[in-house]
């Protein structure tokens, strides 16, 4: 055999070896180091060593083992069977397996590894919002482990509903790097939502375990399966197991409870004079009593009929068909509604301008941080406080900015009900508070005002964008 042939064969073999040799490492969940440190710090300074207490290696191993026993691995996820709460109501194990594992498909052709295909590069295998591409994004991807989600129909300190998470996956979050997964088949979206809930349950449980560690004596084991030899050890083991299952049950119960939270929104009253003639008992719920009062006062009238004729006169539509008159009146009412919204924006019960700024550009305050930062670094953190947490896996914190309301980009969705929920419930983890004092009517006036902001002439960026024009042939 000639040399050339030898070289050709050798390089072919080398290519084969290269292709076959490099497999991906087995995916593993990352420890919640930040939360461990937070709990250790909560114990204060050890007077002997003059440093913070630390959990010992055995205690950390117990946490790792428990997490593995309850939730499995990224390739083989599981959920704990709990006596007090039905986990299957929150997480469907069958769908979970579609989302888990490496990207591929099983014998029946069903896809697997959807989470790693679509989500993990930003949100991380552990759901800690710290995947390989996370650092490049602004805002950063969500860390699911605290169980806190921003855009949902439920109030602060409750979990989101299944449909809330599904909406985010389907529609994406405009104004952020979260894309829409609208084109994925329904079942795959479902699988992803279940997996997100699974990662969230897992993270929340891990937090609880570290919290439990703070209540133990130094060096005491969290759970000791080898204690079965003595009766006392057995009882203690069972007791501890019960305690831990109880903690997990509480977390699961919160998720189940979220589905029961009353999130209904009464229909936004129509901007028609008919809504002013509702019987008093319905008026509060489906009318605009405040708007009515305002218009009555403005026009110095005391009945709807009077108001109508006064408005027709004022708007100069007397000689037009009734339909046109109604349109003109609706327009006038809309503008009055926006004015009420505007007053709420600048003062009183809503006071939006203090954060969103006097011109609604989102520049009222720009120095706050969200709770994924303040939970660790403190309410008013300084730059120097971050290094410790960044070393443990926090992404270098950025300020949280109030929304610029003139762009018409709404992260949690642009439907009026989305804006209603944002104003009523606030946005969890951010300085945007929920507002229980506003009446439903007032919120609708605010929504009307906010929805009009992007269309005011000063919001229009069209003049600044040159159109690509060329001489026509």
């Amino acid at each position, binding site marked *: 055999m000639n040399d050339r042939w030898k070289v050709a064969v050798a390089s072919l073999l080398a290519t084969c070896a290269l292709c076959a040799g490099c497999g991906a490492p087995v995916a593993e969940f990352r420890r919640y180091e930040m939360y461990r440190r937070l709990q250790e710090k909560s114990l204060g300074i050890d007077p002997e060593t003059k440093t913070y207490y630390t959990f010992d290696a055995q205690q950390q191993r117990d946490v790792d083992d428990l997490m593995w026993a309850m939730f499995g691995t990224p390739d083989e996820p599981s959920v704990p069977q709990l006596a007090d709460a039905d986990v299957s109501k929150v997480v469907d194990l069958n769908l979970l397996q579609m989302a888990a594992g490496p990207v591929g498909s099983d014998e029946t052709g069903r896809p697997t590894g959807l989470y790693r295909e679509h989500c993990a590069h930003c949100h991380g295998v552990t759901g800690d919002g710290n995947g390989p591409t996370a650092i490049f994004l602004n805002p950063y991807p969500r860390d699911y482990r605290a169980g806190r989600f921003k855009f949902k129909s439920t109030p602060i300190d409750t979990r989101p509903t299944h449909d809330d998470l599904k909406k985010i996956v389907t529609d994406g979050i405009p104004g952020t790097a979260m894309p829409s997964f609208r084109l994925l088949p329904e079942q795959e979206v479902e699988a992803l939502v279940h997996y997100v809930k699974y990662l969230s349950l897992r993270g929340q449980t891990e937090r609880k375990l570290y919290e439990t560690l703070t209540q133990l004596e130094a060096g005491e084991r969290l759970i000791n399966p080898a204690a079965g030899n003595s009766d006392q050890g057995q009882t203690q083991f069972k007791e501890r197991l019960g305690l831990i299952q109880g903690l997990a049950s509480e977390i699961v119960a919160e998720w189940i409870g979220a589905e029961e939270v009353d999130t209904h929104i009464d229909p936004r009253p129509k901007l028609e004079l008919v809504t002013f003639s509702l019987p008093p008992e319905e008026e509060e719920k489906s009318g605009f009593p405040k708007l009515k009062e305002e218009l009555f006062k403005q026009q110095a009238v005391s009945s709807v009929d009077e108001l109508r004729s006064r408005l027709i006169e004022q708007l100069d539509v007397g000689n037009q068909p009734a339909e046109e008159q109604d349109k003109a009146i609706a327009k006038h009412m809309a503008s009055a509604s926006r004015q009420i919204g505007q007053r709420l924006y600048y003062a009183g019960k809503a006071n939006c301008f203090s954060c969103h700024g006097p011109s609604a550009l989102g520049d009222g305050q720009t120095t706050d941080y969200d709770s994924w930062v303040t939970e660790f670094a403190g309410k008013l953190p300084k730059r120097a406080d971050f290094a410790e947490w960044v070393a443990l896996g926090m992404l270098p914190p950025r300020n949280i900015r109030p929304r610029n309301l003139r762009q018409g980009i709404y992260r949690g969705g642009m*439907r009026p009900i989305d804006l209603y929920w944002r104003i009523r419930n606030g946005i969890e983890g951010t300085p945007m508070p929920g507002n229980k004092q506003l009446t439903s009517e007032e919120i609708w006036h605010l929504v009307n005002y906010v929805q009009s902001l992007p269309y005011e002439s000063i919001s229009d960026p069209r003049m600044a964008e040159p159109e690509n024009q060329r001489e026509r042939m």
Partner: protein
Amino acid sequence: MGRFWSLLFLMVPVLGVGIFVWAIAGWWPIQNHWLPDNINDHGHVIDSLFNFILYLTGAIFIATGLVLFWFLWKYDAAQNAEPVKYSHGSHTLEVVWSIIPSVTLLFIAIYQMNAWADAKLRRPEISRTPGPDGKLHTDDDVVVLQPPLAEVTGRQFEWRVRYAAADGILGTEDDVQITNELHIPQGEDVVLRIKSQDVLHSFFLPNLRIKQDVVPGMKQHVWFRANRTGVYDIVCAELCGWGHYKMRGRLTVEDRSSFNRWLADQHTKQTQAEFQKPTGGEE
């Protein structure tokens, strides 16, 4: 072994032509790798231009490959004892092989001008009336261009579509906004405005033979007339980041009435102003 290299280089034209023939014929395992179905009235112009250039360059490719093979075969060192001869080339030959490609390129440049103008410059018009000179089809005609049906904004990594909707004007409150879903009416001239929110993308509708680079800061327009209903792909044809491969959208061509119904339906969903939990009870 003496003629190993000449045979190896002969494989280039043989395999090159083979793959194309295989793909055009659609044999296993590369079915559906040739041009996708054309559903644009103007698409055949693009296709025939493509085919013309393919056959022209194909013929030159085969000829070059064969000549290369012939020289390698004939002057193989093992078979030729004669010493190498050096020459300073042939002036005539060089003139000929410079002029032929120049003329060919010039021909293509002129031949495609109408196709280019139709695709990129002659946006559909709603009306055209004579200007001050009183004559039609002169530079001072008063032309009303067809407004865009929708604005497509490329973004890492999705297509955001904003329909002008009922009032026909983009940027107003009644616009319908949706991601990755482009619906268009069949059999009508459709104009789309294309924008980018971040980096370079390329808006590619393979079945409509439409491809337009999306440049940040520029508004560009594409137009077409789809002649067949169905569901087709929207893809990004410019490497725009790590998620480029997943920047897909869905184009639905449907008749005017279902298009209107779909748009009205989306508008209703978007303006949902009451909420009641679905009362299906426990499953």
